[in-house]
């Protein structure tokens, strides 16, 4: 086989493969801009994936936003994810820093404890977690929703590994400048380490934004519902609404995530690599 034909076959194969991954997404976005009649008329044709501009409309978005408080749910999710990221980064990095840089009694014991917790499959213990939160009277509150997942032992471990390699000379210089442990951490260590904070922060944000099982259990108040739970509620209501509405909702929820992926792609790739190669 000559190389030209070989290359053509290679491109044909990888292009067909790529269609498998993107066509469902194309259909989702395109269908959100149609009315149901057009969606189903186009199904067996290429127009399921290729826009015909005369058919496009934003009606489904207008109707969807009249029927459901999607933006409110998205705003809830944004708040929950932001709080989880900010507080999570602070407490996990402080713990990781202490384990990397300080000498204190029971240090090894605490480190072993953290590593042991890393193998505990969190979702598996979701029922007794519910019992604890219920006992604390935190069901249906933002505290019950967020407090259980602020500590992330994996992130403590990642921060510890990072700070182990952090040069001690900077710390020495800071001490000469009269900074205490807190000043050193917040004024010197934190600003220098911004990339790892962004990487872990983005991964945490996405996980929180996508979380479904715990919010279903911890919240029944629809005012507090995050977007993923609301989406499922809309979908369960499918006999009252149209496919175009559902696709509009899915598209709306995905747009912020696409923006995050575009803005932070380097950090996300770095996060994937860091999780794989420790």
């Amino acid at each position: 086989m000559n190389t030209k034909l070989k290359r053509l076959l290679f491109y044909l194969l990888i292009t067909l493969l790529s269609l498998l991954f993107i066509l469902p997404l194309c259909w989702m976005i395109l269908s959100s801009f149609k009315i149901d009649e057009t969606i189903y008329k186009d199904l067996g044709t290429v127009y399921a994936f290729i826009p015909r501009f005369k058919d496009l409309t934003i009606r489904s978005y207008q109707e969807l936003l009249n029927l459901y408080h999607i933006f409110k749910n998205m705003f809830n999710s944004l708040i929950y994810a932001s709080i989880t990221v900010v507080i999570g980064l602070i407490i996990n990095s402080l713990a990781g820093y202490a384990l990397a840089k300080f000498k204190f009694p029971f240090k090894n014991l605490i480190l072993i404890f953290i590593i042991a917790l890393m193998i505990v499959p969190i979702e598996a213990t979701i029922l007794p977690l519910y019992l604890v939160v219920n006992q604390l009277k935190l069901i249906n509150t933002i505290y019950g929703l967020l407090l259980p997942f602020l500590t992330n032992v994996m992130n403590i471990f990642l921060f510890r590994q990072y700070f182990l390699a952090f040069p001690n000379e900077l710390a020495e210089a800071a001490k000469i400048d009269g900074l205490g442990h807190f000043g050193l951490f917040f004024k010197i260590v934190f600003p220098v380490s911004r990339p790892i904070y962004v990487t872990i922060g983005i991964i945490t944000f996405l996980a929180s934004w996508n979380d479904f099982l715990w919010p279903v259990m911890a919240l029944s108040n629809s005012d507090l519902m995050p977007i993923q739970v609301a989406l499922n509620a809309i979908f369960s209501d499918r006999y009252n609404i149209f496919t175009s509405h559902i696709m509009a909702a899915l598209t709306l929820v995905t747009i912020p995530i696409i923006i995050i992926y575009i803005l932070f792609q380097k950090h996300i790739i770095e996060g994937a690599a860091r999780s794989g190669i420790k």
Partner: protein
Amino acid sequence: MKKTSKVKYRTDEVMTAYLFLLPALLLALIFIVVPIILAFIYGFTDYYLLKPDERTFIGLDNFIRMLSDDLLIQTFKNTVYFVVLVVPIQLGMALGLALIINKKFRGNTYYRVAYFAPAVLSLVVISILWSVLLNPSSGLINQLLSSLGLPKQPFLTSTSQAMPTLVLISAWSGCGYQMLIFLAGLKNIQPNLYEAAEIDGANTWQKFKHITIPGLRAVSMFLIITTTIQAFKLIVQPMVMTGGGPDYKTMTLLQYIYEYGFRHRNTGYVSAITLVFTIFLVVVSIVFKKVLKEE
């Protein structure tokens, strides 16, 4: 030796260390450790959440009951079936895509983005989207099948097709992110190894077998373990797409825990299941680590 083993602590450093550790450890204690202890305690009782005062110690009854709980055994089988299929399929796809993207060719970026695209969707979005796409009568996939002259398929509404369908959807959505991890692994392999092999006249397959596979060992180990554990905890897709049906054929262990522990408030019995499930997953990850390390 004695001199080095006796560490001198500085009070301010010790105080700061504990202060730095306190918030994270306190929350971990309350929300990770206490639940495990509770599962251990309640697992030996007939605790029913709506009647908390009538809680009595019943020894091993809950654990004996599990052995004859047909639905629990069914969900265990379903979960194992899912794990056994999804781990090789998803990781195989991820590795294949990573090998393609690792080549240098024009348009590489487009293909990387395309293969990764489903990974930006949340599990709920994926589940809803595919429920619509796979609708037996009006879904896109069946329309495509009919226009190709193929018979329509029931997919999620069929007892035999539902779980394999969930496997394929999970692999479709999950392999993009793992492709990135494999790619990072591939980039870590020294290129001069391939150059040396070429000089020695090695063909593509030999290079793959003797350089790529060993070079990816650490990454593969990590991915096999995490994907397996993750797959055992499958719940969102069946919850949204099938509700565990048809005929409980897609109900998973975690879904059983959710349905009967949380919704039906069968706290004592499901605590016992939680305990067994947690220990099972811990053992699986430890055994996997040992076995894969020895290879």
